[in-house]
């Protein structure tokens, strides 16, 4: 995805969410990673970096429960 210079991880989230509006409610809770390292949303991106957006998955109250001590 091509983004303007000085875009942040959150800017890219917003561009993606514009295309997939169902992501909008996850704006504050989405984890972001650049080149396999967790980063803050306001982190500026550099040419060639890989950004991952990891929203909390839908599934109602069951979401976010992977590591609450229940799973294994």
């Amino acid at each position: 995805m091509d983004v303007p210079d000085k875009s942040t991880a959150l800017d890219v989230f917003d561009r993606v969410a514009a295309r997939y509006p169902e992501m909008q409610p996850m704006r504050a809770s989405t984890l972001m990673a650049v080149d396999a390292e967790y980063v803050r949303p306001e982190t500026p991106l550099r040419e060639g970096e890989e950004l991952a957006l990891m929203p909390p998955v839908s599934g109602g109250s069951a979401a976010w429960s992977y590591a609450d001590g229940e799973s294994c």
Partner: protein
Amino acid sequence: MVLRGRRVMLIRVQEEPLALDEVVRAVEHAAAGGLVTFSGVVRDHHEGKRVTAIAYEAYGAMAEAKMRQIGEDVERRWPECRVAMLHRTGKLEIGEASVLIAVSAPHRAEAFDACEYAIDTLKQLVPIWKKEAYENGEVWLEYEHRLAQEQARGPGPARTASPTT
């Protein structure tokens, strides 16, 4: 396994079934008097619902990178420990192992502590999701993200370094 005089830590995310003896062999050595393993196994229920199968999906490169960071962290905190970790992806049946960890140490106390730390941290930092299939539907579950958010905030102004603990 030795590379340029240094042991290579066994860390892998894979679709194939996991074998406990692989992680055990990776950490056993003559000075290790205690060897602890942890197997995370697909169980048949979750919050009162009957689970029929589970699918795991990993953000592959990052998952292995985070597992390696955790392994290095373990060997830093418990310098005499050796650790190995495997995580499976794809569809698993009840009773199959999704994650295996082995830790060896001269004495059992460090091995138990380090193994517990490794699995607890793995579950909070490694980007692997699971989808549970129930008798009447399925749902995606996330890994607990508090530690990941702490890493994202990091000690520095913008970017984070490796784990701080």
